[in-house]
């Protein structure tokens, strides 16, 4: 069976986002910006943001790229999406502040991010496999870099123009549903069965050495 890969035009239109279902495999084409922990903390705690039009450059790619300076500018060595879940503390606030409808990263995000994405009709896309070399080829142009001196190459905000960038899969949809939360229901049941098969009693408790201490 030939798989269907949907190419999404960036900035992602709310009605396009609404059509996406959990597990859909997609690529994106257009402009995006990068960032990780420092972007989130600074955006919320210090109101420091790169000078970009977030309506036009609306896709937030969670990554710390490996970049190489060449005479003509910058070349990408590798861009491996980083774990989005680490940004859960600030992500919902960033999404609301910048009206972000596309997040791309590794793993998934928590309920607060999902709720914020539902408000703005946004999605989170999760990486497929280890893919940094393939997707670095789909970056057509490195347009700009912000905060390079302050934050270094890894935490700086880069502006990339990408074409059929991916594939990624939809792990949070615009209704706030999460692919991994649904999968987890089965895994938790299995964990219980598997624990019994290894001889771990259902009522097992580790030895408590502060007995009576709440």
């Amino acid at each position, binding site marked *: 069976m030939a*798989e269907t890969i949907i190419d999404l035009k960036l900035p992602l239109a709310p009605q396009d986002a609404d059509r996406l279902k959990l*597990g859909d*495999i997609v690529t994106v084409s257009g402009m995006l910006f990068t960032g990780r*922990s*420092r972007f989130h903390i600074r955006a919320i705690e210090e109101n420091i943001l790169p000078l970009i039009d977030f309506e036009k450059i609306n896709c937030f790619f969670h*990554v*710390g*790229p*490996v970049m*190489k300076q060449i005479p003509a500018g910058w070349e990408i*060595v*590798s*861009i*491996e999406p*980083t*774990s989005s*879940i680490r940004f859960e503390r600030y992500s919902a606030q960033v999404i609301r502040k910048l009206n972000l409808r596309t997040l791309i990263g*590794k*793993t*998934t995000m928590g309920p607060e991010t999902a709720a914020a994405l539902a408000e703005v009709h946004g999605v989170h896309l*999760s*990486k*497929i*496999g*280890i*893919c*940094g*070399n*393939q997707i*670095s*080829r789909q970056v057509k142009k490195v347009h700009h870099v912000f905060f390079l001196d302050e*934050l*270094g*190459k*890894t*935490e700086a905000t880069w502006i990339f123009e990408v074409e059929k960038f991916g*594939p990624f*899969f939809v*792990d949070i949809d615009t209704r706030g549903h999460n692919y*991994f939360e649904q*999968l*987890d229901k*089965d*895994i938790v049941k*299995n*964990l219980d*069965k*598997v*624990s019994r*098969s*290894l*001889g*771990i*009693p259902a009522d*097992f408790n*580790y*030895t408590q*050495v502060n007995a009576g201490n709440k």
Partner: protein
Amino acid sequence: MISIKTIQTAMYEALCKAAVLIPPDVRDHLQRTCDEETDPLARKHMELTLENARLAAEGKGLVCGDTGYPLFFIRAGNTAQVEGGFGSLWQAARTATFAATEQNFLRPTMVDPLTRKNPGNNLGPEIPKIHLRFDGLGDDLELIAVPKGGGSEIFGTFYRMMYPSDGKAGIFKFILDSIYNSCYAGKVCPPAIVGIGIGGTADICMQIAKEAAVLSPLGTHHPNPEIAQMEKDLLDAIRQLGIGPMGSRGINAVLSLHIRTAATHTAALPVAINAQCSIGRRWKARITGKGEISYTGDIHG
């Protein structure tokens, strides 16, 4: 006498090779996982990972963009001699790490833990880390470079001080729960290579867990049959969890699982878990007493 320049070269080359090549045992296990998974997304995770590694080997990038912590595991023969003494190994590691970062084989990832300042060269207190031990009568030196990714180190590290009455049930529960936790949504980048330390002090326990994860040839088992059986029972159980590559629906949450033990206090049962990335980055340089260097991804090579 092995010259410092020879050691620097061996460290630099081993780091760079680890960053762009997958060791043969790891590749075989990844391919087997790819063939075994049936869920389309689980398979696609593996296909892309293998394709990514192929591109890296062709000089088109890195096996993974997060080259993580620069670690060296060094074994020296008892009669090995190093120019300037063994203390020179630390400076050689700094020189090699600096050069590998400058040449973009390593991403500048090491920062100050409090100020978060990134010097851009992966150098700092305690980093790069050298584990040095003396073993064997020869005058040779073996070093294994391990650029250890954040996914495995950050999400795949667990420690618990248990007590003798917690027994095997306690050990198994802690391991199963930790693996379930680390695999959720693909945090640890499953299928992970899992090292388990049982016994010792807290630091010995974590140290043997890390060595079990990064230095074990995949698919091998502990020489003690009882411990080997624990490894097999755990692996079989984990395959029933329904967790596949990158936390998808599948079979292979774990690529290989290895236990190491250390003597411990009669009152204690410490257990540690440390995961290694699915791509198992490690590359070995052997240096003879005459200073000839050879490289291999095979841990026994």
